[in-house]
């Protein structure tokens, strides 16, 4: 009897929307490819300190700008540092920048957006006008301006990109909160006398989360490009610490003598960003109930 009931329960559980979303996600080949790509780079970034690779900052004046070989699979740079090793450590900077800046944007943006969407009134007016104003400044220009005023460093680049991405999350969370606040179950919760904070935490927040998750995956992709762009301009990671953008900045001075210096960082940025974009697209399709 209990066994049969468990089975029935399992069957019901198996049909829950989450599992349907998961099934849809799994059948999405490009999304799986994206996850593998993201997973691979994350693994490399995390494992960097224990991998058997040379010190990314160790210079070797006897091995300047060597083409790829057995000793240096991706070649060496203008002061004889191993490019493979710098690429691996650079993955840490890129992924860290992508994830931390989006975390900053979410932590500031989602509560503000929910507040604006649920409370409405003057709070909404103030938050919305500020969001519109910030959205009128192109993302990268805002990030450059902020990074310029904060001073060039990887941390400041992350803060700048985070702040520049915040309006996106405010707008998304606000729109979502407005929709959910109009749902019957929120009104019933209100009617039975649940406090605002309980409604926000129990009903609004969990339902705002899925689209925020999709957006955050896609924003990590643009944040990684933004970090690479800032570092390329000299406003991000400072030498000698490795970062893909900074490596490209140096590489553009050696296009004739050492073309491989410019090749790898770009390929890596492309693959990671493509991975996050594919993952984000897949998540959106999987979580969208309208999508067949």
């Amino acid at each position: 009897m209990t066994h049969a009931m468990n089975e029935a329960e399992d069957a019901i559980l198996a049909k829950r929307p989450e599992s349907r979303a998961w099934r849809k996600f799994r059948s999405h080949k490009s999304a799986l490819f994206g996850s593998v790509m993201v997973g691979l780079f994350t693994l490399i970034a995390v494992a960097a300190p224990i991998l058997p690779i040379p010190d990314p900052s160790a210079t070797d004046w006897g091995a300047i700008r060597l083409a790829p070989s057995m000793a240096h699979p991706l070649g060496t740079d203008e002061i004889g540092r191993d490019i493979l090793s710098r690429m691996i450590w650079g993955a840490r900077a890129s992924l860290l920048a992508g994830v931390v800046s989006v975390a900053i944007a979410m932590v500031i943006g989602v509560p503000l957006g929910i507040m604006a969407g649920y409370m409405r009134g003057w709070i909404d007016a103030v938050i919305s006008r500020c969001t519109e104003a910030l959205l009128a400044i192109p993302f990268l220009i805002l990030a450059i301006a902020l990074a310029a005023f904060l001073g060039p460093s990887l941390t400041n680049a992350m803060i700048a990109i985070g702040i520049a991405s915040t309006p996106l999350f405010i707008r998304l969370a606000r729109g979502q909160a407005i929709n959910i606040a109009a749902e019957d179950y929120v009104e019933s919760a209100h009617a039975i006398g649940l406090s605002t904070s309980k409604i926000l935490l129990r009903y609004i927040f969990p339902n705002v989360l899925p689209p925020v998750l999709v957006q955050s995956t896609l924003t990590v992709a643009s944040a990684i490009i933004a970090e690479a762009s800032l570092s390329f301009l000299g406003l991000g990671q400072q030498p000698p610490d490795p970062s893909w953008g900074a490596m490209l900045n140096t590489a553009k001075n050696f296009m004739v003598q050492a073309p491989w210096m410019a090749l790898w960082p770009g390929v890596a940025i492309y693959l990671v960003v493509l991975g996050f974009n594919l993952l984000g697209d897949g998540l959106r399709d999987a979580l969208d109930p309208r999508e067949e």
Partner: protein
Amino acid sequence: MLTHILHRVLVAIPTLILISIFIFALQKLLPGDPVLALAGEDRDPETLDRLRELYGFNKPIWMQYLIWGKGVLQGDLGISIRSGIPVTEMIAQKLPVTLQLAAMSMLFAIAIGIPAGIISAVHKGTKTDYVANVVALSGLSIPNFWLGIMLIMVVSVKFKLLPASGYVPPSEDFWLSIKTMIMPAFVLGTGLAAALMRHTRSSMLTVMRQDYVRTARAKGLRERVVIMRHAFRNALTPIVTLIALLFGELIAGAVLTEQVFTIPGFGKMIVDAVFNRDYAVVQGVVLVTAIGFILMNLMADIAYVLLNPRLSGR
């Protein structure tokens, strides 16, 4: 129609005021006393007081903002501490270069992105659609400055087909000007083309599900006519809006593209200003970009109404 436009213009004003406050605040958040920087070696308290008086730093902050804002309204964005040239003049000098780059990139993006989107939508679910999607997503994922470096390496360094860098005004030598701009425009246009393709595709797919498209088909019209005249014309409205909204991306992309191809434009100016700690220039550039973006938005709004017969009749 006119009231609609007027309403949009009025709504844009508080946004602009907020942006100006934000840009002004950036300068105030700057660490260090600006007077000390202006005075240089001379740290005599009397000189410092005089400088404070001269630049209005002794006034309350809201009054400083009003003085600054008044200047901005009269077209005075301050003076570059590096070159001594008024910021407005610098922008007027550099903007045409970037506008040429932006226009060529946009042309390229439209020429590639829209047809690709239509083809992809018409052949939904086929290999063509799949390939077009992968190419578009790649276009969005490739950092454009890297694409620029790669192109310079192959096209300019190896095959010596196009100049690697620099800028020639079209008034000086039209064809050389176009030739130097081809690669930068391609690089800047790639991401835009990808965005346009994806947008055109989804807009077309929505329209092609509509009844009037089915009716057009049922009437026995040729598929080509159905797609171009009935579907595409209706799908165009959101695409035009997107083109205006991509303006921000164009300017931001121009910063990197101009850096790679050493083009002396608006984008390179902001990077140089950042490195020279020329804050008046940074503020001016951000403000002008934001105003441009808001104007483009306004134009998109108007175009949206004009293109949509259901709205323009009002």
